[in-house]
């Protein structure tokens, strides 16, 4: 480390005024970033990693304030700078990239204009060369055809493209420090790799410093020089990234590392040391439960613009429907868990929605236990006798719970519809049994979703899905919104429930490490078709298709365990 760090945060304490009095979000944070260094800040949700970066940028919301400590950026004390001084620092000296690139861009302005706005704000360009400079900024983030992309609206670009534009925005004024707050969460593995490599490359080219805020130790390991581990608003460990993975000093760091899925381990290895869980019972898959044959889903294309409707070629192109799912055939056996893997847009969600009978297929059959359920319209299936036997756990535990239902009411919902006549007391007992099965403390049953943590909400969603003792459960990225330590618990719970209740799983995910842990067989999808299928170990350890190899290569290199 150099003698004078670019950013020096010492003793930083941030407080928030809430209804229950003042709460300390972070306490006594010390961190330094040297010139040209990439620092990873790793922690789970609620660890205060984002609050720290907001405090540095002085963009805490109104209830928050810096109670103590100092933030010094190249000799300027940011903690008591005026708002006017901060306006000069933000964007020109320190830039920030946020988690959701689409939300960070103005949806109704062309991306080129948005870059020009930043350049103009900081007087980086005159009116003559501003367009050139904006296009140049797009070119530097490796956007192909920057002249054309200048005129694109954010909705016309993919998630990875949007994040590149956000990076272009952040770097337009050549800042000295870039703060990237979960820049690749929600992006596909291959896109994540491209975006991270871009950030690292640009940092190196310009001698910039970077703070990478992430929940993913693997990501921090792969791309950072040093790593700061935070827990509950405190820094618990700071070390060079190579050292931290060889000799994690703090118990929390070790716990995080254990919980991170990686090749060559079992599900139980994710749990904290000393947990006395029994080995997972493994059942041999039985007879086919669900057989899918030639499943197709087509969507009509819309003409791109008013003028296009008058052009013959455009009309003809629009007449050919878009195939989201293109002739899928596979089967799921009783007691088996099948992984469905692919990047966003590959049709895996459409497939799961059709299997769940929330969406009608264009062609093909879905045979469940000898009956073609694909022929029953999705509108009528809600009250069909087979409905209780196929259930689903949704990707976003917050979105999938009615904000006005308590946890008990949410779990009781399927029982009220299909459980037959039941007294209120019996219903309550059943809910409590289910809560106990999924490990949800009983005193949380009367809380509303916003009063529960992510892991607790996920448990409510699982309890609701298994309430009717289904044969098949579709798990649509059930742990994507969860912290790694919570993910470890939920994955183990799912594996135990499957053995206990004899269910089959269709596990939809883009996280290959997780799929390897929980699935017996894997299907890899691309553009609505199956590119490869086989047992989990065969597909993931000896991939045959190029696309599968590409997916596996894009995974951040997991930390080596001692």
């Amino acid at each position, binding site marked *: 480390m150099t003698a004078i760090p670019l950013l020096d945060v010492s003793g930083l304490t941030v407080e928030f005024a*809430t*209804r229950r009095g003042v709460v300390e979000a972070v306490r006594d944070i010390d961190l330094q970033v040297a010139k040209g260094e990439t620092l990873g800040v790793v922690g789970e949700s609620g660890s205060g990693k984002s609050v720290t970066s907001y405090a540095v940028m002085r963009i805490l919301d109104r209830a928050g304030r810096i109670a103590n400590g100092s933030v010094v950026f190249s000799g300027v004390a940011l903690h008591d700078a005026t708002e006017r001084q901060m306006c000069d620092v933000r964007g020109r000296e320190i830039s920030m990239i946020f988690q959701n690139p689409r939300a960070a861009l103005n949806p109704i302005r062309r991306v080129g204009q948005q870059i020009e706005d930043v350049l103009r704000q900081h007087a980086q360009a005159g009116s003559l060369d501003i367009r050139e400079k904006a296009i140049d900024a797009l070119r530097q983030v490796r956007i192909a055809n920057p002249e054309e992309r200048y005129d694109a609206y954010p909705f016309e670009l993919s998630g990875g493209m949007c994040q590149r534009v956000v990076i272009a925005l952040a770097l337009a004024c050549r800042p000295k420090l870039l703060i990237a707050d979960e820049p690749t969460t929600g992006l596909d593995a291959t896109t994540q790799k491209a975006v991270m490599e871009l950030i690292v490359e640009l940092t190196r080219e310009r001698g910039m410093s970077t703070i990478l805020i992430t929940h993913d130790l693997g990501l921090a390991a792969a791309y950072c020089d040093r790593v700061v581990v935070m827990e509950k608003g405190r820094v618990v460990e700071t070390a060079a990234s190579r050292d931290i993975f060889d000799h994690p000093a703090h118990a929390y760091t070790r716990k995080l590392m254990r919980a991170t899925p990686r090749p060559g381990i079992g599900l139980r290895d994710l749990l904290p040391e000393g947990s006395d869980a029994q080995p997972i019972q493994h059942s041999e898959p039985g007879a086919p439960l669900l057989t899918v044959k030639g499943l197709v889903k087509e969507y009509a294309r819309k003409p791109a613009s008013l003028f296009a409707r008058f052009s013959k070629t455009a009309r003809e192109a629009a007449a050919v429907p878009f195939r989201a799912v293109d002739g899928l055939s596979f089967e799921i056996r009783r007691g088996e868990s099948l992984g469905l893997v692919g990047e966003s847009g590959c049709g895996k969600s459409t497939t799961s929605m059709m299997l*769940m009978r*929330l969406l009608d297929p264009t062609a093909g059959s879905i045979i469940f236990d000898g009956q073609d359920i694909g022929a029953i319209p999705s*509108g009528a299936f*809600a*009250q069909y006798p087979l*409905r*209780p036997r196929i*259930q*689903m756990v*949704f*990707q*976003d535990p917050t*979105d*999938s*719970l*009615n*904000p*006005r*239902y*308590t946890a*008990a*009411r*949410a779990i*009781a*919902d*399927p029982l*009220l*519809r*299909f459980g037959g006549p*039941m*007294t*209120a*007391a019996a*219903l*309550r007992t059943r*809910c409590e049994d289910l809560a106990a099965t999924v490990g949800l403390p009983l005193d949380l*049953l*009367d809380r*509303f979703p*916003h*009063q529960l943590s992510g892991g607790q909400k996920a448990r409510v*969603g699982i309890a*609701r*899905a298994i309430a009717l003792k289904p044969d098949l459960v579709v798990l649509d990225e059930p742990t994507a919104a969860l912290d790694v330590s919570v993910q470890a618990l939920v994955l183990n719970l799912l594996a135990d429930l499957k053995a206990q209740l004899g269910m089959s799983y269709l596990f939809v995910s883009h996280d290959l490490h997780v799929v390897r842990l929980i699935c017996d067989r894997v299907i890899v999808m691309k553009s609505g078709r199956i590119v490869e299928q086989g047992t989990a170990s065969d597909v993931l350890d000896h991939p045959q298709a190029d696309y599968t190899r590409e997916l596996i290569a894009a995974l951040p290199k997991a930390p080596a365990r001692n």
Partner: protein
Amino acid sequence: MSALPVQKSPPSAFAATLSHARYVIAGDPVTAFAFGLLALLIFAALFGPALVPYDPLASDTSATLQAPSLRHWFGTDQLGRDIFSRVVVATRLDLIISVSSVALVFAFGGLAGIAAGFFGGWIDRVVGRIADTIMAFPLFVLAMGIVAALGNTVTNIVIATAIINFPLYARVARAEASVRREAGFVMAARLSGNSDLRIALTSILPNILPIMMVQMSLTMGYAILNAAGLSFIGLGVRPPSPEWGIMVAEGAASIISGEWWIALFPGLALMLAVFCFNLIGDGLRDIVDPQRRT
């Protein structure tokens, strides 16, 4: 719905709502002021007729057109009736008209909007065109026409006021319902075996209630103004029954000759009522929204 498992929740839902309401009201002085004003209006509507010093209909030819004094706080009108008594007694009629018309439009407009947004298709088109047709008229002129055609009664004022507010409710409810149509919890409700109608009523409706509440408080003020306006031009409530709009109309002619109090005090009451309902919206939303209850 009858088997809601709530028997074990320690404080009852009502008590929790009450303590939450107290917190919201205490947290914001503007909300506290608005709710105080509302309490005053409700008090006047409930007990006003029993408490006022004079009979609001009794004329006293010996005391016509008196300026405000200790005997007559707001003065007297052309017939010697006590304006303070009339203003207080009028509260009941004005609140009845506005509350019932808003309740009516809340039920019909809200449900139509939810049906349009949630089911889409032809329901959406029908509801949308009805709303467009109503919006195409100058709304006050439409209300005048409805009352003139149906007859000059309180019921018809309520109906006319409800009809002209229909597009506001239907459109807000439609927009909010169509956003939630694809939400995860709606899909989860389908998986649990709920019919579409039940989903619309138990999953969609309660979740758009906070937004509808704001809409409700805004149109409440508008409904009072509309009722008073109809009475002012001679449609609607008929003299001699005390009503703010008529009283302003009766006093309007006398302002030039110097008897300003006849029109001023009922006008002030009208203004305060509208002001109160406009302010109350945000507070009401915070009370109804469980997300604010941390």
